[in-house]
């Protein structure tokens, strides 16, 4: 709680920090400028660590990574005008994936609002559709209530980003500060949320009677903290669990009931299991189009139970038979007593056979014939870190390979931009994750394209001497784009080959150690040096240039109509037919 005595007269700027401290904030990512300078001036009086980023987009992704890795609200700060507009991509990223962050921007004085004053931009207008809510604060006395409400809104219900725009005169004026008195009303109840005893027992009945059920594990499990409850449900009723990209880690990948990732780049047995299911129990996931393929043919014979906090997600993409609208953990707590223990399931055995047929790509047994594949790198990284590291990925092929080959057993160990697919996310988000979890091992896995979008944050890592490791999966291409061009545009590689600097030299220029790896035999030693090195370490992995992510469901196709891996002895094991 706030160390500030009750009812002290403070400047608006001091109120900003006092409120943040009161909300339990210990770290802020930001970048100063004219309209927020009073706040920066007041910072030294408060016990908050400020990480100076190199770009305000970075600050928002850092706050985002901080929130995803820790479950706390991330905070970013910027000046008006260009500082604020630079936050747009980060806000949209957090909005799409429902991540609780609070962004504070300076604004020109209230007297000149709307006059095109120097560095004035209507940031509350701009960010209206990409924030859960936003505030324009023009008086010092309104700062604490607005900020406190912003934190509540960000983390309540379906979480999301909130922006608080504070005019410079409000920062400079003084007002009575009383943290307790500024408390927001309890989060407003949502009349559409709820579930009757009947709908709970309908769901339980469907689960009891299903012969071929599948749990669809989503991001909501992590946000609700329903890890144990979902696991109990799966084990008790012997239901196999497929995960969305953002649901990875919500159910232990090493669990015998874990199927892996569903959807566009999910393994064949996962998608086939969904297509053949007679019941889907969707837990905190929103049936994204990357998950369903074409809707007309999605799991045609399955009844659907949807447990979801946001009523707007119910029947949005997939029509469901039973909707339980509310917090997943609380709903499962009510549902579980109605689920009897089931000993063995022929369905699970059937899926295991499907799995066997499709053949696990046992990359560990691959011969080291000089070719380095991203799969190698990620598999080795998984082995070396014991699956325990927080992995922060960028967007592209490497992101999908990470999802396929790094087995996440714990929630909040994968940080990735799913809904917006924001290239440039990984490096700053990893900084946020490391600041939030200094005792955890943090790895960035980024492509040669995406890393260059926010590579300026290497300098932030150096300035803060953050002990995080960076793996660049360097294929000389905007690989995911190249893959689409290969499959759907007759290999017309228009603007997908990308030149990169020597990343190790780039790291070196920042005083960051690094290594280049071109052979499989060098992977583990390089990973070992990175892990042993105190402080940041960058590894530039030169991998096969024209490798593709398989399987792949082309857009507009059904889940079972996937493009399979061609017979390529280099990446297939003997038993992978």
């Amino acid at each position, binding site marked *: 709680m706030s160390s500030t005595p009750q009812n002290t007269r403070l400047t608006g700027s001091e109120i900003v920090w006092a409120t943040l401290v009161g909300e339990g904030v210990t770290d802020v990512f930001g970048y100063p400028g004219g309209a927020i300078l009073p706040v920066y001036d007041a910072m030294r009086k408060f016990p908050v660590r400020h990480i100076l980023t190199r770009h305000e987009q970075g600050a928002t992704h850092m706050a985002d990574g901080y929130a995803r890795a820790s479950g706390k609200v991330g905070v970013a700060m910027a000046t008006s005008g260009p500082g604020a507009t630079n936050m747009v991509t980060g806000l949209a990223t957090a909005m799409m994936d429902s991540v609780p962050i609070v962004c504070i921007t300076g604004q020109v004085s209230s007297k000149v609002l709307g006059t095109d004053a120097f560095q004035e931009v209507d940031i*509350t*207008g701009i960010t*209206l*559709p990409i924030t*859960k*809510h936003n505030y*324009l604060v023009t008086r010092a006395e309104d700062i604490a209530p607005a900020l406190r409400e912003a934190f509540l*809104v960000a983390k*309540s*219900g*379906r979480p999301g980003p909130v922006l608080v725009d504070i005019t410079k005169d409000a920062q400079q004026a003084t007002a009575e500060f009383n943290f307790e008195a500024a408390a927001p*009303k*309890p*989060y*407003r*109840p*949502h*009349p*559409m*949320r*709820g*579930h*009757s*005893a*009947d*709908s709970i027992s309908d769901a339980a009945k469907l689960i009891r009677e299903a012969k071929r059920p599948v749990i669809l594990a989503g991001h909501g499990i992590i946000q*609700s903290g329903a890890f144990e409850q979902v696991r109990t449900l799966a084990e008790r009723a012997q239901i196999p669990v497929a995960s969305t990209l953002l649901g990875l880690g919500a159910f232990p990948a090493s669990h015998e009931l874990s199927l892996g990732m569903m959807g566009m780049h999910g393994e064949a047995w996962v998608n086939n299991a969904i297509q053949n299911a007679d019941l889907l129990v969707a837990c905190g996931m929103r049936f994204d189009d990357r998950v369903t393929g074409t809707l007309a043919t999605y799991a045609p014979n399955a009844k659907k139970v949807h447990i979801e*906090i*946001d*009523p*707007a997600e*119910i*029947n*949005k993409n997939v029509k469901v038979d039973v909707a339980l*609208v*509310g*917090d997943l953990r*609380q*709903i499962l707590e*009510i549902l579980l007593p109605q689920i009897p223990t089931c000993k063995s399931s022929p369905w699970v055995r059937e899926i295991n056979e499907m799995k066997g047929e499709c053949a696990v790509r046992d990359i560990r047994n691959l011969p080291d014939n000089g070719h380095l594949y991203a799969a190698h790198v990620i598999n080795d990284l998984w082995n070396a870190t014991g699956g325990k590291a927080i992995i922060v990925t960028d967007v592209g092929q490497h992101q999908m390979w990470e999802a396929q080959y790094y087995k996440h057993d714990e929630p909040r160990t994968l940080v990735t931009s799913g809904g917006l697919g924001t290239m440039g996310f990984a490096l700053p988000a990893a900084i946020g994750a490391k600041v939030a979890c200094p005792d955890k091992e943090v790895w960035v896995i980024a492509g040669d394209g995406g890393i260059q979008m926010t590579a300026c944050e290497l300098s932030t890592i150096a300035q803060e001497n953050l002990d995080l490791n960076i793996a660049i999966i360097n294929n000389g291409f905007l690989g995911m784009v190249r893959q689409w061009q290969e499959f759907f545009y007759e290999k017309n590689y228009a603007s997908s080959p990308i030149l990169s600097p020597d990343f190790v030299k780039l790291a070196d220029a920042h005083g960051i150690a690094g290594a280049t790896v071109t052979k499989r035999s060098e992977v583990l030693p390089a990973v070992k040096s990175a892990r042993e090195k105190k402080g940041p370490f960058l590894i530039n992995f030169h991998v096969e240039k024209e490798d593709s992510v398989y399987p792949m469901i082309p857009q507009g196709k059904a889940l079972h109509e996937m493009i399979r891996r061609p017979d390529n002895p280099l990446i297939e094991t003997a038993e992978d037919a």
Partner: protein
Amino acid sequence: MLHTFVALVEDKPGVLTRVASLFRRLNVNIVSLTVGRSEREGVSRMTIVAEASPTAGHRITASLYKLENILEVDDVGQYACVTRELALIKVAATPQTRSHIFELVEVFRARIVDLAPESLMIEITGVSSKIEGLIQVLMESGDEILEVARTGRMVMRRGRHTSRVMEAMRIAGVPEAEILEPNVTAESGEESQLPQ
């Protein structure tokens, strides 16, 4: 299909933009939107009529609830309601050509609210089809319509029904949240489970 929503919203700057912007984002066309004060200070009442697919009502209601300034949304299409719209219609008319308009106004239970040498103004209240009926009859009888101003629809549900939110705000001493514990279906009476 036309959907009608009654929304109670906090009376704060920018709330109208948030609501309008939401419809734009959902790619739903607003047919009419009226805003005004409600029975309670600080709470405005909107009636929104929108053209959308028959199944869109749930999605629109649920999306409106995502806006932090929305207190309650009622998709009133399914209930018995009183619907009213007010229109002002300016018609070109001289003392020689007025009389038949007076007759029409009488039939439609409208009123003449302004009379000038070359025009008159009609005020009419009712359901939209009544207003449209008057306009059509005026045109068919060869009158020149100079201006039309319409408020858009206002809707109120029949019977004792009032907003649960307003009820909660009215009953002193009872925390809003207790009354508003959400959507417990009538049959079950189950306690709801809201995360806070």
